């Protein structure tokens, strides 16, 4: 009894604690990548044609056809010229931005017959300089009057003689899509240059007048798959996996110790300990909607991680509310979670950007709704994998009853508060968000993790024992759930056909009880529903539950499909009877 009384206060204290922790999330370092250039070396390669930087593991290679190159670097003390002595080993004083110059040349670039004076530069930024920050590293404009600056991992802006180069046309040659002309806007930004082009390396040519031409090659340190660099980017994720497995084992041992004291349950420990996949009830497993859901989830995971590289990033203008970290630039579709958790950035946005943000948010709410949670979200996917593993190992899970769901709502409110308000008081939700550990790491982005790493370990451990635990406290999902009435996907019920067998309630990862107690309304979609279809999958009554899109049912419960696994048993029986009849004759 005492324990029960303590439950609610504990939850409230926990949610307050969570809010406080979120404010200081940056102080909890989980895994940090070095944010300086130490360990890297600059190698000069004078054999190649052209003038540009490339990367190869820990080498920054300057390719040049000219022997008289000079390399400048940004250091904590300002711009410094590199000498042979410090090229071979960079130290922590270097900020990760380098520019190389060669003496001015003459060349007829616009082929008008007159030779122009050509100033050539090559610039590179190492990955850690490209974080979300208001200002990108900038060099001395006395040395290099023309500079290309890559901001926020998304935009290219041009600077000339210390001022932005507004409304000017430049020629951009990119490794990916060749040569094209772009015009900068008022702020000196080239907005319509695809990000994949930028990342492949660009050569920007600017004709100041007929006699002077500036040329800068810009290369960012890009993520490349399946290299040692990629594996090192994944290492925090592996650390999280290891910690979560250790945590799960610890929980299992603890539970065993508690159960041993229980007079009834202690008897069953021996049977439960036997971990393995044999002896599973196969007849209720069949190929169907749930397998399709898995396929969609897997493909959505890969698209959200690598999709941008394969299919281009045009879709990134669309932002769907999904916990797939937008720091990953290879993501197919943008995620509005960053804007939602940093609402203060709305003030800096242009009207078109705000319109796109609000418009795509509303559109995805109407068209998809929380289908995003059940089918697309990578956070849901990884939790489902953990749950699947638990089922396969026949480890007993946790069952939450309606009271526990009710009692953990303060945590959900706390999460929502953190999600929406933290930016205004000077925190950063990304430091506590568990999703940041997943998709950028798989795409090969090196991200230092703070409290979010610990959160992810927590999410995985709880997700192992209770299917989709995080989804019950997810602020983004809750926000989407508020609009479930206008969503086109609906879960409906034939109240007369329902026998109240409660199978749907047992199957529901979100613990929605009204789905089986409802006897009046046809529409049983609730704000918690993630549209995973588990209830329809387990419903044994014909048409009792069905999912609709725009009112058109596309997945119905049916006893025939529910029982179709037993057709195998029937065929077996048929063979047996045949054999016996033969024998008798």
């Amino acid at each position: 009894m005492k324990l029960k009384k303590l439950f609610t206060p504990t939850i409230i204290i926990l949610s307050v604690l969570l809010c406080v922790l979120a404010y200081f999330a940056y102080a909890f370092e989980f895994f940090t990548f070095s944010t300086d250039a130490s360990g890297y070396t600059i190698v000069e390669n004078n054999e190649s044609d052209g003038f540009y930087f490339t990367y190869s593991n820990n080498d920054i290679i300057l390719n040049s056809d000219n022997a008289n190159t000079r390399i400048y670097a940004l250091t904590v003390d300002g711009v410094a010229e590199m000498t042979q002595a410090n090229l071979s080993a960079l130290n922590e004083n270097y900020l990760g931005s380098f520019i190389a110059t060669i003496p001015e040349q003459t060349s007829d670039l616009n082929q008008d017959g007159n030779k122009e004076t050509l100033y050539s530069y090559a610039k590179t930024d190492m990955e850690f300089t490209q974080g979300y920050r208001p200002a990108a590293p900038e060099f001395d404009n006395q040395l290099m009057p023309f500079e290309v600056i890559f901001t926020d991992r998304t935009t290219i802006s041009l600077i000339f003689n210390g001022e932005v180069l507004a409304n000017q046309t430049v020629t951009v040659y990119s490794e990916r899509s060749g040569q094209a002309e772009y015009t900068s806007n008022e702020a000196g930004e080239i907005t319509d240059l695809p990000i994949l082009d930028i990342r492949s390396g660009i050569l920007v040519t600017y004709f100041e007048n007929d006699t002077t031409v500036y040329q800068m090659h810009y290369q960012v340190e890009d993520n490349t798959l399946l290299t040692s660099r990629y594996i090192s980017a994944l290492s925090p994720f592996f650390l999280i996996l290891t910690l979560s497995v250790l945590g799960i084992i610890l929980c299992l041992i603890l539970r065993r110790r508690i159960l041993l004291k229980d007079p009834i349950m202690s008897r069953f420990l021996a049977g439960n300990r036997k971990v393995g996949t044999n002896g599973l009830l196969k007849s209720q497993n069949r190929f169907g909607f749930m397998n399709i859901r898995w396929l969609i989830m897997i493909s959505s995971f890969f698209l959200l991680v690598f999709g941008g590289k394969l299919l281009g990033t045009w879709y990134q203008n669309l932002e769907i509310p999904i916990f797939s970290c937008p720091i990953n630039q290879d993501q197919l579709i943008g995620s509005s979670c960053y804007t939602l958790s940093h609402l203060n950035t709305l003030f800096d946005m242009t009207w078109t950007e705000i319109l796109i943000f609000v418009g795509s948010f509303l559109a995805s709410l109407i068209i998809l709704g929380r289908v995003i949670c059940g089918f697309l979200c990578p956070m849901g996917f990884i939790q489902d994998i953990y749950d699947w593993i638990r089922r396969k190992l026949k480890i007993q899970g946790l069952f939450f009853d309606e009271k526990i769901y009710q009692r953990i709502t303060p945590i959900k409110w706390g999460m929502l508060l953190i999600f929406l308000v933290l930016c205004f008081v000077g925190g950063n939700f990304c430091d506590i968000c568990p999703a940041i550990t997943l998709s950028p790491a798989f795409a090969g982005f090196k991200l230092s993790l703070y409290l979010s790493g610990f959160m992810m370990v927590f999410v995985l451990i709880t997700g192992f024992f209770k299917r989709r635990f995080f989804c019950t406290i997810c602020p983004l999902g809750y926000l989407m759930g508020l609009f479930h009435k206008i969503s086109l996907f609906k879960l409906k019920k034939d109240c007369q056909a329902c026998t109240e067998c409660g199978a749907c309630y047992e199957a529901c990862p979100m613990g929605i009880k009204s789905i089986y107690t409802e006897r009046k309304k046809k529409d049983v979609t609730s704000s918690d529903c993630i549209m995973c279809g588990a209830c329809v999958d387990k419903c044994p009554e014909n048409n009792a539950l069905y999912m609709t899109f725009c009112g058109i049912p596309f997945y119905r419960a049916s006893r025939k499909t529910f029982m179709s696994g037993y057709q195998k048993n029937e065929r077996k029986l048929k063979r047996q009877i045949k054999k016996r009849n033969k024998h008798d004759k």
Partner: protein
Amino acid sequence: MINKKLTPSEERQRQRFIEKSSRVSAKYLRRLTELKGAPDTLKPFIDVLENIYVNMDGPHFNTKKPLIGTYCVMVPQELIYAAGGQPIKLCSGSYTAFSIGDDLVPRDACPLIKAVMGYQTMCVMPIYDDCSMMIVPITCDCKKKMAGMLKDLVNTYSFHIPTSKEDDTDLDQIVNELYELIPALESVTGQSITHKSLSESLDQVGFAQYQMTRFNEFKKNQPALIKGTHAMAVMNASSYMPINDFSEKLYLLNQELAKRKKSKVFVSQKKEPRLMVTGSPIIFPNIKIPLLIEEMGGSLVADETCMGERSLYDPAVVVDQSFDGMMRALANRYTRPCTCPTFVNNDQRIFRIKQMIKDHQVEGVIYHVLRGCLVYDFEYQMLEEELGKLNVPIIRVESDYNEEDIEQLRIRIEAFIELIKLKDLQKK
């Protein structure tokens, strides 16, 4: 099985009892087989009933498994099979045993209890005497007191059922009850319930339910493919058959019904009123009501009684394949969809009946109440009101375990059938 030596008069009484009991059973069995349209594959089921009630033989399957007697449909068969036992449903419909039990229990107790107590004291039925243990779910008052009385005679286990099932705590209670039942079962059978054995028994019972689903689909056919009384006999026989045996026989019956459907062999005419029976359990040999319905020209197409469709209707839906997950699935399957009127709130039964009326195109409902079965009697009013809205006629028939009321029942059922026929004519 009788410990004390019988006096000659007691011995005579016993002989009379056996003769009378088997004579009544044989009569109803004959009426059952004489009813037109019995499929050939119904014979194994009739044989089971004959063996048990006429020949007074043990369950005629050769099994060394210890028999576990159960009452009500709320005792999980899956657990008994998993423990290596053979469940047998002992709810009785015998008129002869009823007359013996009449002296043992209060006058107003329901006849089912009287019949059970009658068999139990006479010690003539092998299915009662060979039971190693009896599991009595504490549902209605009569069952509760019966459990108390049985305790003195046999090894009885009281299986407690909460009075409501709305809260999650009620389900937790059932799960705990199931966990407590396991050691009791294991001590009787000497085998332990493991993950493997439980999943196997779930699979076997699930397959029987799959065959039942097919069977129910055939019952929905219009005109009828099988007489409702025959269908009830099948369900009654299932109480005394091992589940694999039952599935096999039902599979063969289903195959025959499928053939009938293909070649359009029907057992009823199109204009025959389609009726359903609900209410107190109808147990062989007390099958006078279904027999009367079909002899009077009605077509019994569905039943909502615990010895009928109900007992194998709801499947155990295993969501989580851990041992605990299967136990939860069992607890769920045996309580939540159960339309037993002993629960405080039982609105779902009305929805179930409405759905059955829709599925089976039922034109009239016969509400069967055993005398003294209060819980079912309580629900009649509400059902009458609801069906009135649907314009489906309903009639309440009260009966007892004797043949005295048979003429009265005949008149009422005949009138009811005529009423429906008249209604059909008016429609046209």
